[in-house]
Structure formats: structure tokens, C-alpha cells
């Protein structure tokens, strides 16, 4: 099949829409007959990335490319960047403020989940410049 490209603009503080892009990708993959296991991997990774862009990254853009053998996601924001990536990748580490925690976020499990549910994971970040996640999930 030809590759399918999807693009989403993620707004900075709109929690009510957060999850819409991941939901849309999930529906697309389902319609394409992709396996539930693969869909789950993509859904978890993309949702966590999307939420991080909203909460920490000041919004950004997500590009998804679906090919015959994989789903590639690039999530890019121009937010504050991550100071200590090693720490940010640790389960339980979170800088989410109290008002965000009250919504159920801030377990510090987002980035670890993304890593766990993807086959390829690359995090590029620079302070004051932004953060880009490049992820790949192979079709299973």
C-alpha cells in the first residue's frame, strides 16, 4: 500500500482536545485492519506524547506516516526543552504542577510508557528550543 500521512496541530493548553489526535490515528489504523497489539502500542505512545506536548511543551505538531511495515510518529514542540533527559525517562519523575496532577497526570510514567510501547525511540531536546520525539512501531 502507499504510505498514509497524517498531520495534527496540538494546541497548548486545550486538555479537552488532548487525545483527539491519538484517537484519530487509532481509528485510521483500525480501518486499515492493523492488529490490535500494534494499535495499542501506537495509541499509548502517541497519547502520552500528545499530552506531554500540551502539558509541558506548549503545544506543537505531530506527523504520522503509516507504511506497510511500520508506523512512524514525529512529535515536535518549541517548548522549554528537557533539562535532564535521564531523569525525565525515570519512572515516577515528574515536574507536573498540582493543578495538572489533580487531573490525573503527573505519575511520571509517560516517557517510560512511550519507550516501552515503541520499537524505535529517539528524544531530541534542547533548552529553550524544544523537544522532538521520533518514534516507530513495527506492524505485528
Amino acid at each position, binding site marked *: 500500500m502507499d504510505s498514509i500521512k497524517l498531520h495534527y496541530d496540538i494546541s497548548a493548553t486545550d486538555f479537552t482536545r*488532548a487525545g483527539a489526535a491519538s484517537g484519530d490515528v487509532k481509528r485510521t489504523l483500525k480501518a486499515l485492519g492493523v492488529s490490535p497489539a500494534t494499535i495499542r502500542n501506537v495509541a499509548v505512545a502517541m497519547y502520552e506524547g500528545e499530552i506531554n506536548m500540551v502539558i509541558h511543551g506548549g503545544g506543537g505538531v505531530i506527523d504520522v506516516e503509516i507504511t506497510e511495515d511500520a508506523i512512524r510518529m514525529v512529535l515536535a514542540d518549541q517548548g522549554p526543552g528537557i533539562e535532564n533527559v535521564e531523569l525525565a525517562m525515570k519512572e515516577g519523575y515528574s515536574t507536573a504542577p498540582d493543578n495538572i496532577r489533580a487531573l490525573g497526570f503527573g505519575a511520571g510514567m509517560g516517557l517510560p510508557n512511550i519507550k516501552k510501547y515503541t520499537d524505535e525511540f529517539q528524544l531530541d531536546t534542547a533548552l529553550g528550543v524544544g523537544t522532538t520525539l521520533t518514534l516507530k512501531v513495527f506492524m505485528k
Partner: protein
Amino acid sequence: MTVQAMMEQLDLRLLTGGDLSREVTGCYCGDLLSWVMGKAQEGDCWLTVMGNINAVAVAVLTDCACIVLTENAALDENAKARAEQQGVTILTTAESAYQIAVKLSAVIA
């Protein structure tokens, strides 16, 4: 057992109706969304006090069978609307997650 049967046996009240004929195959308890996101399984009955729109998104993406709001936790208006739109079943009870989980484990095959 189906969501419908579980609702009747455990005396849960329906807030938003999705597919009540769906099979409940397990149970997950938790309020921290990315914890649930990473751990809940398809077909789980998710017990939580988190009745906001983000919980609905997590339910959709994990494909859990339904959400049960325990201890009469509130369901936000926008969460209710989103759940209806996305076909997510949300049930409510005055009982705690522990009480519901104990009962559920006795009835699901």
C-alpha cells in the same frame, strides 16, 4: 460476562451507554492516567474516581470495556458528552474500588 450483566449483578448505575454487550475480561484499578494507560488491558473494567475528559480518552485508547466511577465520584459534563460521542460506557456506584473489585472477581469467568 457482559457489561450489562455486570451492571445488574453489582448494582451499578448507568451514566453513559456504550456497547453493553461487550465482554468484561478483567479489572484494573487506578487514578493516575499514564499508569492506567500503560497497564490496563483491552476488555478491563476500569475502576477509578477520575471522571474527567482525559479519563474518557484513556478508556478509548486502552479499549477497556467500561469505566466504573467508584464512591460516587463526579463525572464532568464535558466528559459525559465525549463518552457518549465515543461510545464509552460509564457506570457509577457508591462502593469503593476494593468492594467492587472483590465482587467482580467472584463473578467474572
